[in-house]
């Protein structure tokens, strides 16, 4: 099975994502931003980085790139798309997942390992996770998740909040000022999915903790969930 990773100008985690997919036992395929052709992949990762220099707003220029036409069509057909960090920002700007990523409340670029917890274990992006907190790096300046209150309630009701930042005791860091909430995200949100559940974005980088040589393979719980779900989806095609 083949899974694609998009490279935009200034993507910098594309190679990490390709490697994580190889570790997960699938054939990684590099997809170039100038072509809408997804080469028949069974899933797509939009990786971290600073697509198009983050000019104007993080993710917005990437939204209008040819490859995103292919990604939107793929998502509309039910294909699985995972946006990591800058990839999450691209999905949010593309309105493929709800919300916006504002500048971190601290105004500082946040680069450290955080704890996140899957909020449900029956989604295509989490079903192989144990449910325990995952220790995964973040590296972003604009990761403060925002939507209006009414939409937040809707996301809770629909089960669209897939990951939250958690405290050392595992309790969600719901307060934007909680030290375990690294960027001031509303209700401690680290990642969400669309209503259909096949497009998800998260700020932390699971691909950077995808094998023990990197310090931990916590991230592989999410990568392998995604890979397995893509395999299932492809089998139904």
């Amino acid at each position, binding site marked *: 099975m083949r899974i694609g990773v998009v490279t935009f100008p200034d993507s910098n985690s594309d190679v990490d994502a390709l490697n994580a997919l190889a570790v997960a036992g699938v054939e990684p395929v590099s997809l170039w931003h100038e072509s809408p052709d997804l080469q028949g992949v069974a899933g797509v990762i939009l990786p971290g980085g600073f697509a198009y220099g983050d000019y*104007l*707003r993080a993710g*917005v220029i990437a939204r*209008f790139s040819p490859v995103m036409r292919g990604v939107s069509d793929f998502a509309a057909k039910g294909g699985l798309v995972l946006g990591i960090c800058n990839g999450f920002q691209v999905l949010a*700007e593309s309105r493929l997942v709800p*919300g*916006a990523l*504002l*500048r*971190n*409340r*601290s*105004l500082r670029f946040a680069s450290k390992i955080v704890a996140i917890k899957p909020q449900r274990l029956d989604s295509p992006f989490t079903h192989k996770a144990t449910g325990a907190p995952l220790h995964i790096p973040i590296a972003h300046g604009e990761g*403060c998740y*925002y*939507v*209006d209150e009414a939409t937040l309630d809707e996301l809770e009701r629909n089960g669209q909040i897939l990951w939250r930042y958690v405290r050392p005791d595992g309790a969600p860091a719901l307060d934007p000022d909680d030290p375990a909430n690294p960027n*001031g995200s509303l209700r401690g949100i680290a990642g969400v999915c669309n209503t259909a559940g096949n497009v998800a974005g998260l700020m932390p980088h699971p691909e950077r903790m995808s094998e023990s040589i990197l310090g931990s393979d916590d991230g592989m719980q999410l990568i392998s969930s995604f890979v397995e779900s893509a395999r299932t989806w492809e089998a139904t095609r």
Partner: protein
Amino acid sequence: MSEFRYAVNVLPKPGILDPQGRAVELSLPHLKITTVSRVRVGRRVELTVTAAAEPAARVVVDGLAKEMLSNPLIEAYAIELLEATSSTVSAVGSGTDSGASSGAKVTPS
């Protein structure tokens, strides 16, 4: 056709966290300024649209502002017409200069 020069001013919507504005505010005491408050930091984009008339040009700017220059979820924008330049050839009888076909500038009020 004419050319219309616009500025699109984009600001965080009221109530949306604006850490840049807050950082500016927090630095004001260092300048011994005590009379400034409610700082909001946004961005300004200037651009030129070629169109037959201003309303048509404004539709283009408005679409661009909504679609790309701002994120309607978190930002509000305002469009400002800076300059209109007529590039149509002047009607017969008006203007005898060799440069009659270029650029009468109108500055909006």
